[in-house]
């Protein structure tokens, strides 16, 4: 039985400032899977994610979220869709004037009419869920370490119980132990909440341990999307270059 696609990108084309970034790009994400998008720097990973999170529109082609075509959405439908996706930005993008708890409660206040106290209880739940200690709730973003910023950003992305979670380089800048813990947390949450996760990452450990499939972006399209073990054996020159560096080799040997 084929699983339902929560994201479906078809024949996508993007031009930015006269440059062709994507052409004939196809990609889908199945419900409940963790998909990683990899590719060299400048291969258009972040741009692709911005299309999927409804921040930008492709020049041509279609992005479907939960079966809905996103190119002709009215404001209301878009608002409804946004509630079902959570986005964690590369540098956290926490609102600097608010505490962690206020950051997490912000989307909840926007999308529900719960009372302040209920919102805060729910916010605390998400903070704990993201693996932060309760004391972190009252802190301002500039008082947090890099790892805590990532977790706080994850808590905010989880605020509305999204069905689909986007992570932009979730483990970059973390020490290996924290990065490993973060990966485990993501897998646990997928298990518990049944979410689909799309992440951009360069972390080979994450790729090998935490992903169901990996989509490789090169030559302006997804050249392959397969489980990592399969992908690493691919004869495609861009892919074999990517995985045959010393780092790639050591990781595969383990």
């Amino acid at each position, binding site marked *: 039985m084929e699983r339902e696609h929560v994201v479906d990108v078809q024949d996508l084309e993007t031009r930015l400032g006269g440059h062709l970034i994507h052409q004939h790009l196809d990609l889908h994400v199945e419900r409940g899977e963790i998909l990683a998008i990899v590719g060299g720097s400048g291969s258009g990973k972040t741009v692709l994610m911005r299309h999927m999170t409804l921040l930008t529109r492709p020049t041509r082609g279609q992005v479907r979220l939960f079966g809905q075509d996103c190119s002709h959405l009215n404001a209301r439908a878009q608002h409804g869709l946004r509630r079902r996706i959570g986005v964690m930005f590369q540098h956290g993008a926490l609102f600097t*004037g608010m505490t962690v708890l206020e950051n997490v409660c912000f989307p909840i206040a926007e999308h529900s009419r719960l009372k302040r106290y209920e919102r805060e209880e729910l916010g605390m739940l998400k903070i704990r869920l993201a693996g932060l200690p309760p004391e972190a709730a009252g802190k301002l973003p500039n008082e947090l370490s890099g790892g805590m910023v990532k977790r706080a950003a994850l808590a905010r992305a989880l605020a509305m119980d999204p069905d689909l979670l986007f992570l932009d380089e979730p483990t970059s800048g973390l020490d290996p132990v924290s990065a490993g813990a973060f990966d485990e947390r993501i897998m646990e949450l997928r298990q518990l909440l049944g979410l689909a996760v799309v992440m951009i990452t360069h972390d080979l450990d994450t790729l090998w341990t935490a992903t169901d499939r990996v989509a490789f972006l090169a030559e302006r399209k997804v050249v392959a999307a397969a489980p990592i073990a399969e992908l690493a054996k691919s004869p495609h020159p861009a892919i074999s270059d990517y995985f045959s560096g010393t780092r790639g080799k050591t990781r595969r040997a383990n």
Partner: protein
Amino acid sequence: MRPGMGGTDLSAEQAPGVALDGTVLACRGDWTAPQLNGMARVLNSLQAEHGARWELDTTAVSRLDTAGALLLHRLRQRLAQQGAELDVSHLSDHHRHLLDLVRETDSLPPPPPRREGMIEAVGRRTVDTGREALDFVAFLGELALDFFPRLLRPHRLRWKQIIAEIEIAGVRAIPILGLLVFLTGVVIAYQGGTPLERYGANIFLVDLLVITMLREMAPLMTAIIVAGRTGSSYAAQIGTMRITEEIDALRVTGITPYEMLVLPKVVALVLAMPLLTLFADVVGVLGGMVVANAMFDVGFTEFIQRIPDAMAPSSFWVGIIKAPVFAVIIAAVGCYHGFSVRGSTESVGRATTRSVVHGIFLVIVVDAIFSVIFNLLGL
């Protein structure tokens, strides 16, 4: 797998509901955050007798998220306190997992910060203001220590940067400054001309205009416009550089941020402001001249011939000499507030506002002090 998660039923949102039938607590509809307003009250109104045992039934719940699970968990806690029990053993695996998850991660929000009383607030403000004033003086001291040795070797200054700053702060301010000062001249001529005309003393309009414009209005208007345009941009620029750690990057390169950022700005403004003031003098008097000619029968030639009799040359110098002092104040205040930025982007906005307010405030205070000094000197 999570029920009701597919895309097709997105529009079919059902209001959540709950009903107690005997000992079965049956929930239905969407138990998700956007739908649950008021549900806490409904659940709180449910009262159980001591020793009662209710069974939770969520088979009719189309969607359950952590917000819904949290409400059910709270109900369960409250019932337990009252000696009753909510049995969750018949839930679907997914729903029970969610409840377990909520139970494991539940923790109360931190207490809101204590609100301070009025006396405490006044005290805190006073101490903060005093401390800031001290800080500013310390900043000026550091600047002076850093500057004087460098000023002794002017060829080592960053002239390229200074010239760029002069263009931004000086040349580009000319249009707006010219327009505003011209209009100020027009206004002064109108207001002053009417009473003078009544006594047939139209020609004294020249004295009034030239003296107010050269001694006070032109330097002050220039300072206010430069504080608003340039002082604020200094604060914003340095403040942002602090947040992005560019200042620290400068430091580790071995360049003091004073040398790279503050000194060129101060030098540029000290050079540009007297020139701007001179320009404002000319345009302001011109504005008055136009009105004097059109409304009060004082022709252009007559006006210009009268100027040497109307004022001593010192009036001109009194105005010009203030300009570099104002320039130092504005540049120092702008940079000081930029360096005072800590952490958040919000504080950049605050620093920018304060740099303008404090800059203009200090300029006017110093202007008043100048007036007293010049008066004592008989200028």
